[in-house]
């Protein structure tokens, strides 16, 4: 991990910040797509170091935050079944569904377990043949390779007690939705470095053509973020519309092709609802029909789901860059990390949680 320290070097960051100040002549609104980047920006206070002309708005790239309510309610229904071991990343346990969360399912006797990888869930399935093991497969392009790997392995092993509840989302369709909205404010994008590490950036030129906004592929460390911002501001100031790769140590144009191929074998595109935003066409991945046996939605009859979102929560507008967490009347009052009303207050990558935690 030693290589990271270089990308946290205060002197280097200060140098890039000076350069950003020097090239900025007008106000610009930039969006970082990825929740990991939102978290880093707020944690390191990088937004405080930018010239006042530059505003960062926080995108929808937090998988926990955008997982739709009906999918969480399905998870709750499946997790409550006595024959099920329900596995999930830790953050999901506190995300409020319509009337409870996975923690309360666990407290009432449901077998809900935190895993760090879907392959751990697969091991649980092998070790507990009398139980149905379900993994909550949420995430962006970054978690897709591990999730499809788990499904492929389950198929190869002939497991009949493993399934996944898929709620996968993809970045480019979400960007299209934001840019295509009449109320859009975003003038430049910091593209999510980890997503591009898997997918490359061949999906972005069409967006560039249609919407004419510059983009910089950006990493997660303070220096990476500062450089991504600098590249984007430089392009904006010069009237250039391009994709710059400011994260070349991890990202190539084509990305990780074997991983992409594997994803294609297991997943196909589908429409997906984003919590707080609504249905975005072709914005999700779901299991191909040949993997129906591993599809938790098919295996368990979870019936019609009627959802009930908190009327106070404006997370959808925050994730489209229209509002900031402070604009929400419930922020820090009815809604805190202990009693979240919306998912953006739960995940450490959610803008509301980051603002709350670091005291903005």
């Amino acid at each position, binding site marked *: 991990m030693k290589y990271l320290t270089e990308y946290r070097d205060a002197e280097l960051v200060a140098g890039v910040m000076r350069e950003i100040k020097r090239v900025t002549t007008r106000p610009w609104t930039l969006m970082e797509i990825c929740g990991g980047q939102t978290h880093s920006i707020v944690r390191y206070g990088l937004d405080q*170091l930018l010239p006042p002309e530059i505003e960062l708005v926080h995108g929808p790239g937090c998988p926990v935050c955008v997982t739709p309510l009906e999918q969480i309610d399905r998870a709750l229904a499946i997790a409550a079944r006595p024959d099920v071991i329900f596995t999930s990343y830790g953050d999901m346990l506190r995300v409020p569904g319509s009337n409870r969360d996975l923690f309360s399912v666990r407290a009432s006797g449901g077998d809900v377990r935190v895993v760090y990888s879907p392959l751990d869930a697969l091991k649980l399935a092998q070790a507990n043949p009398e139980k149905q093991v379900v993994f909550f497969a949420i995430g962006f392009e970054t978690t897709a390779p591990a999730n499809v790997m788990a499904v492929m392995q389950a198929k190869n092993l002939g497991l009949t007690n493993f399934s996944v509840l898929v709620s996968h989302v993809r970045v480019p369709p979400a960007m299209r939705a934001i840019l295509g909205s009449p109320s859009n404010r975003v003038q430049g994008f910091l593209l999510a470095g980890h997503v591009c590490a898997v997918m490359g950036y061949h999906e972005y030129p069409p967006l560039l053509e249609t919407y004419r906004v510059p983009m910089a592929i950006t990493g997660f460390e303070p220096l990476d973020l500062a450089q991504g911002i600098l590249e984007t501001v430089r392009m904006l100031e010069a009237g250039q519309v391009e994709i710059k790769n400011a994260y070349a140590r991890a990202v190539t144009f084509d990305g990780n092709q074997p991983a992409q191929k594997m994803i294609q074998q297991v997943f196909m595109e589908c429409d997906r609802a984003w919590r707080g935003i609504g249905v975005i066409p072709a914005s999700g991945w779901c299991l191909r029909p040949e993997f129906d046996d591993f599809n938790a939605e098919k295996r368990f009859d979870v019936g019609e789901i009627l959802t009930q979102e908190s009327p106070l929560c404006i997370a959808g507008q925050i994730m489209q860059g229209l509002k900031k967490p402070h604009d929400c009347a419930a922020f820090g009052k009815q809604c805190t990390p202990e009693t979240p009303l919306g998912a953006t207050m739960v995940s450490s990558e959610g803008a509301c949680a980051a603002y709350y935690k670091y005291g903005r």
Partner: protein
Amino acid sequence: MSEIDITGAVCPVPLSHNEQIVMGHGSGGRMAHDLIRKVFLPAFDNPALAAGDDGAVLDLPAGRTVVSVDSHVVFPLFFPGGDIGRLAVCGTVNDVAVMGATPLYLTAGFILEEGLPLETLRRVVESMKQAADEAGVKIVSGDTKVVERGKADGLYVSTTGVGILPEGREISGRRAQAGDAVILSGPIGDHGIAVLAARGELGFETTVQSDCAPLNGLAAAVLAAGDDIHVLRDPTRGGVATTLNEIARQSGVCITLNESALPVRPEVASACEMLGFDPLYIANEGRMLVILPRAGADEVLAAMRASKYGEGAVVIGEVSAAPAGRVLMKTPYGSTRVVDMLAGEMLPRIC
């Protein structure tokens, strides 16, 4: 004749159950006595315990009496750098020590799960003895209960500590004042990461050892070197961030930390990086925070560095008047952020 030797009899007699805990060990009857005689007494040998009465009669030196209780449910029972026994002794010794008191006596209550190997209990008790010897405290009263298999996870230990606080000494989380310095005795996050690794939850190998240690020697060194110590605390569950938040609220002051000064081992930092944790919120079991007027800090720092478990002591921050009740962090980039309390459970059963 109080004891009948039945080991040679041929009639249906109770098995001797020398291998594992059974319900009878909690009966209060012969088996319970057997357990005390064979496991506890040899380790915790002292007159108060050996007297075999329902309570210990203690002669306390002059001063005010400090009492503190702590229960321990750590899983797994053994982890790199410690075990539930060492933890149970150190945790309570440290709670008494950071009150400014000299810990003298402990009591120990055990909840044992049916089926627990006796050998495991022996190892835990032996470790408690070693930790108690190191801390210079005596375990003077104990209790054992057994619950059915599946109703507990191996064993739980609850300890109560008794110590003496000299007249006139007042160490409290309410006493931090503007102008004070904040000293931390060593690197943070070791215990939490070591336990997580021992559980196999990291998915990778690490060499991190728990920092679990009795801190009464270190506390004594601090109190000898500084005549105006305001606060002592051991930042256990919730980590340094949570403990400092408690102090900031209790005292109505602002504590500002310097991120570049925070000691974190590279192994802990990279484990946290991968898991998305912040070392500031990870539990420690052998670290101490000291808050005292800036003027006396150098002397106390030197005394800490010269004593066992304080070698890594550094000044990590300072106390100011406003904003009251807040903990702030100065980043290396010149920005500032708020360091809040931990929300909810991050790592269950680490102590």
